[in-house]
């Protein structure tokens, strides 16, 4: 990809870590013995500097930190203080000019995880804090700094899709002098206006404005309008897209190189079915009455608009009511003798401003509510409805009855959206469910969308969306022009030498960051659009081949933290992970509320619980943890892409593996906590700690150590990871992966794969440790696994050439190749 060039923001990867300990008034200092903590960290970590500062987050403290960074050439900083959720951003902002960028600063919350919630001597609490800080230091030591990625903008902005928002977007772009290509099917402006009522009926008042915009666009030197065939494919990333249009007539396929894409897609309208008596003459829809007025002028008879969206289970009644009002007003303004009434379900409110109410009275347009509980009946010349006021069934007579149209995104539009790589669900509009994270964490919309195919809206809103989409395009185009467009620091990258192109990542994460590939996609290494990736990291934790890395916040870093922490835990202590949107936030709040709980629980925060590679958890057990508690968001509330769901299935798998090892399955547990319920969090932790007390420590003889090592290796096994990632089935889903129909059958398959791979790993590990030749019964004895299982695995390993089989006196002996 030529879009990414590296700028030398950091030259050396050698970590020089500074640790700053915050006193936080009296909230940390007297409760935690900071002097002792300083001494411990100085002696037992590689930190280049440990310093106590009363308030590192205030101007004097920040000045101190800047001075210390400069004096000690610090390039990574741990602040032991309060919530990173709130404070990290300030440190990142303030220390950017001191050379520390996102990812190079970590904040450890010793106030809310230790000082406020644990009763203990200052020395004890210093001990607990030390473990947490050391783990953070280890995490930063493992940080592989990646240089800032500059994103270049190759080519103009392209607007496609042919929706009316095209012109608003183009106007915005031309005013900022950004080169733009409009790809349309028809170049005739008059055509557009003539057909407008089909998609935006009752919007006559906006036509003049639209005409002006169109003219401005038509005359601008920055806008090139091209007539193209059907959109065929879109490849590439923000700043560097290749758009291909199909061959048309004698034109060969056209290919354009563009920097950004704006899709202007208008939704479509269908007439109501016959169940409302629709016949297109007497009973008709908005588009038809609009056309009638357009051709024959305003009618003179009695017209009733019935806002019947709710009766057809469509939520767009408000919009239909507005359209009806616009058409009704036009009729009355042009033909006094026409009688117009608007019949609406009393569950909606008439979309009228105070001035419009007055106008409605002046024009004698009746707004008649009916009781939404009882469906009105259409008769010839009448509609019967139930008056919500006195519950009398009334009739209203009509010469023409106008129904709401059925709105849908339109087949053409869905096709374009699919080519653009959006996940389109059947029957739904194209509006994406953005991940519920902070704005700076959300990448760009992969392609900017505008128009009523996103979500039904009126013409004014469509134009506004066009402007807004274009504003975003202008923003990146201008940044790129100034050479200041950089990709965010914490996004996924693909090691293309490891990626086999299985596409699991794209299925797992719907943030859109995994770029589409040509064709069916087998065997083509994927790449990530850094401008779109939100840094959720579930995909990286699921990749069977470890090809994906969440840079500056990697699995290796989390593993380093876990190793350090797990090794330092005593036998009656346990650890856990909390996500920033659930567990970790609830833990912060428990500290702020001063709730007390066990000091034997160590919490590490994670951006999303789905960031946790199962192998990291396996590593925790291997390195000495006796219990791991994962505390995520409440079910169905993952703010990223299914992070919680994937964690759920990872935990189930680890439980199975623990069973195979022969230790209690409850040692790994998943819990859910709402951030606003710190009491629940405390209960969860207390319960887990007492469970661990009941279970006692894992007895770690050599046998057990080897088995736990095998668990870790199994969790890194590509086949296991593939089955895990591909077979995600959430608790309430009734469909099963592949062709399985039975919950147990599905689970058995996974268990079989796990057992097989676990035993294989055990065998290989065992033979690697003791380099000699073995008989079958020796292996079976040492591993304490079933003979048949071991034999099956050995056969396979021999078949794969991993293990060699030699015969001596007709007895087979095995050895690692």
């Amino acid at each position: 990809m030529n879009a990414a060039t590296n700028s030398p923001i950091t030259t050396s990867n050698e970590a020089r870590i500074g640790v700053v300990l915050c006193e936080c008034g009296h909230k940390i200092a007297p409760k935690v013995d900071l002097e002792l903590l300083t001494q411990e960290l100085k002696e037992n970590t590689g930190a280049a500097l440990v310093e106590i500062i009363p308030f590192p987050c205030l101007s004097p403290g920040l000045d101190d930190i800047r001075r210390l960074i400069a004096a000690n050439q610090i390039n990574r900083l741990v602040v032991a203080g309060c919530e990173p959720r709130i404070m990290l951003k300030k440190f990142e902002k303030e220390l950017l000019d001191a050379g520390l960028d996102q990812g190079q600063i970590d904040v450890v919350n010793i106030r809310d995880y230790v000082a406020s919630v644990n009763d203990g001597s200052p020395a004890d609490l210093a001990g607990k804090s030390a473990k947490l800080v050391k783990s953070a230091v280890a995490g930063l030591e493992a940080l592989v700094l990646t240089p800032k990625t500059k994103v270049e903008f190759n080519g103009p902005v392209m607007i496609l899709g042919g929706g009316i928002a095209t012109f608003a977007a183009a106007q915005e772009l031309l005013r900022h002098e950004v080169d733009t290509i409009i790809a349309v099917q028809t170049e005739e402006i008059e055509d557009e206006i003539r057909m407008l009522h089909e998609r935006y009926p009752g919007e006559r008042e906006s036509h003049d404005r639209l005409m002006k915009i169109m003219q401005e666009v038509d005359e601008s030197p920055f806008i090139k309008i091209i007539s193209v065939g059907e959109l065929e494919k879109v490849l590439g990333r923000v700043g560097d897209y290749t758009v291909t249009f199909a061959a048309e007539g004698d034109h060969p396929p056209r290919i354009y190189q563009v920097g950004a894409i704006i899709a202007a897609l208008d939704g479509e309208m269908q007439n109501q079915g016959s169940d409302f008596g629709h016949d297109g003459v007497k009973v008709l829809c908005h588009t038809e009455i609009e056309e009638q007025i357009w051709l024959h002028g305003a009618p003179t008879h009695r017209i009733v608009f019935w806002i019947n969206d709710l009766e057809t289970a469509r939520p767009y009644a408000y919009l239909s009511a507005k359209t009806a009002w616009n058409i009704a007003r036009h009729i009355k303004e042009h033909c006094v003798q026409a009688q117009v009434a608007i019949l609406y379900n009393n569950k909606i409110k008439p979309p009228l401003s105070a001035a419009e109410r007055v106008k409605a009275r002046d024009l004698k347009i009746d707004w008649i509510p009916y009781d939404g509980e009882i469906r009105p009946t259409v008769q010839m010349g009448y509609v019967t409805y139930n008056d919500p006021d006195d519950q009398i069934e009334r009739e209203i007579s009509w010469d023409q009855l106008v129904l709401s149209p059925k709105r849908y995104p339109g087949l053409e539009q869905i096709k374009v959206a699919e080519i653009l790589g959006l996940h389109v669900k059947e029957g739904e509009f194209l509006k994406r469910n953005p991940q519920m994270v902070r704005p700076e964490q959300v990448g760009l919309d992969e392609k900017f969308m505008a128009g009523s195919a996103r979500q039904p809206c009126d013409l004014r809103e469509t134009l506004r969306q066009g402007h807004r989409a274009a504003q975003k395009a202008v923003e990146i185009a201008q940044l790129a022009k100034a050479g200041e467009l950089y990709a965010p620091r914490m996004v996924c990258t693909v090691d293309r030498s490891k990626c086999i192109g299985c596409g699991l990542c794209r299925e797992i994460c719907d943030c859109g960051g995994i770029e589409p590939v040509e064709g069916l996609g087998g065997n083509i290494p994927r790449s990530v659009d850094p401008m779109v990736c939100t840094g959720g990291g579930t995909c990286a934790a699921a990749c069977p081949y470890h090809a994906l890395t969440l840079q500056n916040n990697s699995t290796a870093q989390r593993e380093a933290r876990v190793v350090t922490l797990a090794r330092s835990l005593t036998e009656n202590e346990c650890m856990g992970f909390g996500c920033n949107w659930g567990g970790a936030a609830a833990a912060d709040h428990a500290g702020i509320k001063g709730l007390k709980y066990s000091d034997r629980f160590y919490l590490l925060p994670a951006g999303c619980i789905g960031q946790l590679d199962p192998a990291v958890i396996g590593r925790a057990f291997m390195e000495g943890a006796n219990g791991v508690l994962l505390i995520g968001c409440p079910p169905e509330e993952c703010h990223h892409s299914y992070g919680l769901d994937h964690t759920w299935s990872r935990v189930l798998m680890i439980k199975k593996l623990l069973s195979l090892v022969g230790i209690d399955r409850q040692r790994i547990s998943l819990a859910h906590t709402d951030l606003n319920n710190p009491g629940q969090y405390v209960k969860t932790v207390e319960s887990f700690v007492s469970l661990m007390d009941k279970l006692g420590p894992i007895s770690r003889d050599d046998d057990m150590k080897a088995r736990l090592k095998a668990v870790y290796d199994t969790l890194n096994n590509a086949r296991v990871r593939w089955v895990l990632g591909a077979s995600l089935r959430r608790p309430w889903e009734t469909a099963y992966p592949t062709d399985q129909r039975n919950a147990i059958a599905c689970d058995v398959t996974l268990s079989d794969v796990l057992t097989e791979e676990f035993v294989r790993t055990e065998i290989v590990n065992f033979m690697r440790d003791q380099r000699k030749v073995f008989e079958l019964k020796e292996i079976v004895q040492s591993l304490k696994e079933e003979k048949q299982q071991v034999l099956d695995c050995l056969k396979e390993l021999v078949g794969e050439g991993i293990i060699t089989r030699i015969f001596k006196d007709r007895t087979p002996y095995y050895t690692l190749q």
Partner: protein
Amino acid sequence: MSDNKEKTDGLVSLVIDGQPVQAKEDWTVLETARHNHIHIPTLCYHEAVQANGGCRLCVVEAKEGNWSKIVVSCLYPVKEGLQISTSTAKVNNVRRWILEMLLAECPASKEIRTLAEAYGVNSTRFKIDRPTEQCLLCGLCVRVCEEVVGVRAISFGSRGVNKQVATPYMVPNNACVACGSCVTVCPTGAMQARLNMVRGNVSERTGHGHAH
């Protein structure tokens, strides 16, 4: 720490509670005091956001020459020769008034009651309109939402005596990302109580439909 002897440019000397301190010109009195382990109570102040001097609890007496005045320390910049007293009778009197008013404003807040008791304020002479109110309208939640989180899910609604922290039209706001930052910075339990009004049903908004 700060007691390095060499005096460089941009440093000013002042006295806080009799303790001579040095500070940079762009520091505020509160920051300087805290850096030197001098406690000044605050409610509407949080390190993560811009100070706005709303609650006035951080008032101190600032003396310059023969003049003295009461200033809010979270906004007042340091100055050469300034003499700051953080708990004179005058200052404590102001704080007691503030706390007495707060007792009427948010009588249900345990945090405010504890703070008031520390200043000997156990009852209020002001009329209590909303006995269950915990919010003191310090606006920390509004500021953190805008400055730290980067969305504007909550704001002040209504004016004057009816002013309150709310979402537009009092309905759950789709701009809210349910990060809980407002709850974290709230000096009382007010935001915890009204978070659900702001974020609404999170599972509805995070619902991606079915995975895969």
